[in-house]
């Protein structure tokens, strides 16, 4: 049985299995948009492997973090858009 941890996505607590990526946590929180493009369009991950940079979110107040690369940690605060 996988251990569960709690992270916050846009201030909303989400329980996720340990070892999932931040991207997965964002989807589990019911969000589909990760960031806004330079002209304001909604965007979400494309490549899933750290190439496209469309999955950038704010993690613990640090901007431009790749959600597809980062693994969730207990208490992590994730902010989209």
């Amino acid at each position, binding site marked *: 049985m996988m251990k569960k941890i709690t992270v916050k996505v846009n201030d909303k607590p989400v329980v996720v299995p340990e070892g999932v990526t931040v991207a997965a946590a964002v989807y589990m929180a019911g969000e589909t948009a990760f960031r806004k493009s*330079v002209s304001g369009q909604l965007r979400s991950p494309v490549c899933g492997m750290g190439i496209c940079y469309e999955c950038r979110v704010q993690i613990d107040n*640090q*901007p*431009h973090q790749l959600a597809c690369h980062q693994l969730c940690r207990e208490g992590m605060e994730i902010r989209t858009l």
Partner: protein
Amino acid sequence: MTENYDVVIVGGGIVGAACAAELNGARLRILVIDAGKVGCGTTGASMGHIVVMDDSEALLNLTAFSRELWLRLAKDSASAYEYLPCGTLWVAADAEEMDVVYQKAKNYEEHDIAVEVLDHKSLYQYEPNLAQGLAGGLRVAGDCVIYPPNCAALLLQGIEVRENCNVCQISDNLVSLENGSEIHAEFIVNAAGAAAPKLTAELPVEPRKGHLVITARYPGFCQHQIVELGYLKSVQKMEKESVAFNIQPRPSGQYLIGSSREFAGWDDSINRNLVNRMLTRACDYMPALKEMLAIRTWFGYRPAPMLSCPPPPHVFLSKTRVGGDAGAGESKNGGDKLPIIGNWPKVKGLYIAAGHEGLGITTSLGTARLLAAEILGQSPPIDPAPYRPSRLFRENR
């Protein structure tokens, strides 16, 4: 087959483009030739900072005059030029540099350039992300930033341009191309930047490589183009390698970080050590830069004028440590460090618009006015004497 034009400008960078635009109104058949795409050489690598510099009276006149022309030009089509009226903030690290600030303020005010002397308190009110412990600064609100590659292209609108075309020789009223054809012109302008000496062998211009780093987007980090006063020293001292802190906010929310200077010929690799030094210096002045992502590094070759004639007395700066040294033990002192603008007496019909070092973008418009005035026989807008090529032949050193 020989073609005929009234004016051929070799070099479609910002200087060549400005000259073409200036001469375009005079009903002349103009051709601009570039070895690549216009605005994609040194112009494309540059910062686009429009700044008044007071190293010497002549430089102050040229940069102030040019800045005025930029303000008039860019204001009307601000978005096309990506015009950003951010101003320059010269930062003084200590009391000694504050003395320079006061002197600079005096110089600028004497030439009707509005400035604001900042003390310790007001410095941080304007730029709270500067490192603690700085003494103050000088704010020049009229300075601004434009985006050079598009500016060059815009200036060349409506003008005949030949890209990806190499010129191999300029002789009396004749431009010879690598493909064998020739172009006859009454007026030829060598505006080929750091490559200008390849066509006019006696031009004392050498490539002075400079690196830049651009960050990801972090809106609101700084508002001004911030430059340390040591920048002046870096320009003037002809050291093999030097760095000086310089940061520019881009309209995109990214930050351009500079600056470095090195004499490395046409070496086309990133000098990691120098970039490291440059970024370290930048982080000394703005520690929060350490947290920013650097997306790319690149470099350009400034066309540095390496004159052997003596510099005019540096009245403004002779008392301070950032004044021009006479090159004690280092490589050539570079002379008056002014661009070379005007008729080149040794070749019929040839005019030079070269050697602008790190001020090509700023002084391009002023250069164009001076050159056009000489070509068209009009009265010059400012005294052209300090920039004339003839000064190179005056004293043989």
